[in-house]
């Protein structure tokens, strides 16, 4: 039998100041109260792990224990096993980045990399620069170290480097601790930073002497268009975060960081404090998995699947979303970013969407001030099947339509600027 009993936090008031701004979102709590099996979720960016062949993964784990048991079950080195780093060197070479074993630290997902970098770089009150909107997990990792986060808007070509320049002029040389960017199929924006902008970003970073963190979880999930060279391929000073979560499985919690030697030394010290070393067992399993050739076909299959799902979502958006809404058309990755008319509040709309059996993440979650982006929403197409995606978008379109009816009444009366677009019934 369920119960309605509340369990209080008896330790409230004794936590460190740094935890003050780190909170679980009220929206997430609302979801928890509303989780129903018939809800189509566009909320979480969960990889389609069911596409990873269980036998291959099991074989890798099996070999790890049986053939490498002594090392797999023992503590490892803090930077990660050399064999694993060799795999990473090759993965990096395939995307045009030349690094050596010594340039790499294996981390517990790229997420640990974010936390370690924040720990190493941020004092309370320091300024850091991110895209706006940006990855919630990054904001969460950074906010525990109490920075002042400056957000640079994006357009279809990624971060607006002209606006970055303006901000850097204001902040001055070394005016920020780092610039954090997700250049490929940005989370949540879905857009990709173009090659010219990548070069400009690096010029600016050099001119103002500010380190760049390149977070690249989705880079290998490209559906169309040509590969754009990573920032790290253009500049050895860039700190690069990679992950096995999207090319193998997030359950491994395995990622990596490459960075200039002095930074890596600091990161290693921070990592030792955090967990001594990563899981050797997981590392051996990943090595085994990537020693074979099967993973390439699996990754191709995954990418095809995501492409089908993206197509389903974009087609459904074209069909069911009102003309007043705009959205990005990602060439890869997991997410579509939808922008609604300025006066609509995607957070206030969420309760109704949940009622109708569909969820998304309201845009303000991706901004540190929790206010910007209220009229936006992130839709993840990576997890649901195409039919569910179409149905979910249809439901969401209905919710939107209801809200827009009011909005249009203002426009028709001339009370709000704008005009009713054609096709907006």
């Amino acid at each position, binding site marked *: *039998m*369920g*119960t*309605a*009993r*509340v*369990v*209080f936090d008896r330790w*409230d008031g004794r936590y460190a100041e740094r935890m003050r701004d780190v909170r679980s979102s*009220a929206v997430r*709590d*609302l979801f928890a*109260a*509303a989780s129903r099996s018939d809800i189509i979720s566009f909320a979480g960016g969960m990889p389609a792990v069911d596409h990873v062949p269980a036998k291959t993964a099991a074989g890798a784990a099996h070999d790890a224990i049986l053939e490498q048991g002594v090392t797999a079950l023992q503590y490892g080195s803090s930077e990660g096993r050399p064999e694993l780093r060799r795999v990473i060197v090759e993965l990096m070479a395939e995307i045009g980045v030349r690094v050596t074993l010594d340039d790499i630290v294996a981390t517990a997902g790229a997420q640990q990399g974010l936390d370690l970098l924040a720990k190493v770089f941020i004092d309370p009150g320091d300024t850091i620069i991110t895209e706006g909107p940006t990855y919630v997990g990054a904001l969460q990792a950074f906010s525990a170290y109490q920075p002042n986060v400056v957000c640079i808007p994006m357009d279809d070509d990624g971060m607006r480097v002209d606006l970055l320049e303006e901000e850097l002029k204001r902040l001055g040389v070394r005016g920020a601790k780092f610039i954090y960017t997700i250049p490929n199929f940005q989370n949540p924006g879905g857009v990709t930073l173009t090659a010219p902008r990548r070069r400009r970003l690096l010029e600016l970073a050099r001119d103002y002497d500010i380190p760049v963190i390149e977070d690249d979880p989705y880079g290998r999930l490209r559906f169309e268009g040509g590969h754009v060279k990573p920032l790290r391929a253009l500049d050895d000073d860039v700190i690069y975060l990679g992950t096995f979560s999207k090319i193998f499985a997030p359950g491994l919690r395995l990622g990596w960081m490459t960075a200039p030697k002095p930074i890596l030394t600091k990161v290693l010290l921070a990592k030792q404090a955090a967990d001594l070393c990563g899981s050797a067992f997981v590392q051996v399993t990943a090595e085994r998995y990537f020693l074979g050739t099967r993973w390439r076909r699996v990754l191709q299959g995954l990418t095809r699947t995501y492409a089908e799902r993206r197509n389903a979502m974009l087609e459904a958006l074209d069909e069911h979303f009102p003309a007043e809404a705009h959205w990005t058309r990602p060439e890869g990755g997991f997410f579509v970013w939808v922008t609604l008319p*300025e*006066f*609509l*509040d995607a957070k*206030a*709309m969420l*309760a109704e969407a949940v009622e109708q059996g569909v969820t998304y993440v309201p845009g303000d979650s991706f901004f540190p001030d929790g206010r910007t982006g209220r009229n936006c929403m992130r839709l993840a197409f990576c997890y649901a099947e195409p039919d569910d995606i179409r149905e979910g978008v249809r439901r969401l379109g209905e919710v939107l339509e209801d*809200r827009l*009816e*009011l*909005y249009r*009444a*203002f426009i*028709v*009366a*001339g*009370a*709000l600027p704008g005009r009713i677009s054609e096709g907006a019934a």
Partner: protein
Amino acid sequence: MSQEKIAVLMGGRSLEREVSLKSGQRVCDALTSLGYKVLALDVTAELVETLRSESPDCCYIALHGKYGEDGTIQELLEFLGIAYTGPGVVSSYLSWDKSVAKYIMAEHGIPTPAWITLTADAFKEMGAATALDMVPTEVGGFPLVVKPSQQGSALGLSKVEAPEQLPEALLGALSFGEAAVVEKWIDGCEISVSVLDSADGPEVLPPVEIEAKSGLFDFSAMYTAGETDYFVPARLEPSVTEDVLDLARRVHELLDCRDVSRADMVVAEGDAPYVLECNTSPGMTETSLLPMAAEAAGMSFQDVVERLVRAALSRRK
């Protein structure tokens, strides 16, 4: 030692969930230290089942916002035959809807700022947006306040200084509910007056003066430490203090508020007080106004909680 079992209802799915959990926790602590058996309950799908199996002696309603303050939970508890703290069903509903409460107050000569109420349907179905030019004249000119008619904690509230800001403010308010109140902004000092029933009738507590540093006592000013200064008792002329105490008592009686209520007012320059709204489930957090007023009256937080619970227990069937 009393060993009555009190179920403290809190949380729920309203937008004021977090605030309610804070109120609820403080109430639970107070009741525990008073020697009651305390049951902290979230308003979930299991609530009725839990209430039936636990059969508490009464419920303390520490809910704010929709379902907790609008008569819904009160109606349910009436049906289940469980006594509860605070005003009853009708009183809760009338106070919860700002527009309805204003109509009642205005009808009975209680000063409340000039206002109009506009519903989403009036815009969608009847072209109300074509009459927005009439709004400022109707309520006596700018600035205006636009707020959802049914919502607590000032969510969806905005101050409008010029005609072009009005549509946006209305859409903001209407994203929280079906009706929006557009009210004349009264420049002056914001005060809040709490009323607690006692054996000798309503006891009006000292007025609390609220000075938001941003100039607008909105959600963030309300719940962020340091964004607002409070003065208890409010820095008012003695005769004005008399007036606001009297108004609070009249509102409490007029809306048939049982046990507790909190009237939010503005005292305009020239000392004329206006009642903005009446709350039937006032916040009980550390920065809440009722506990602040009680303290100034020499009553501890525990005293307030105990008084409310004793009143509810006396209504046990």
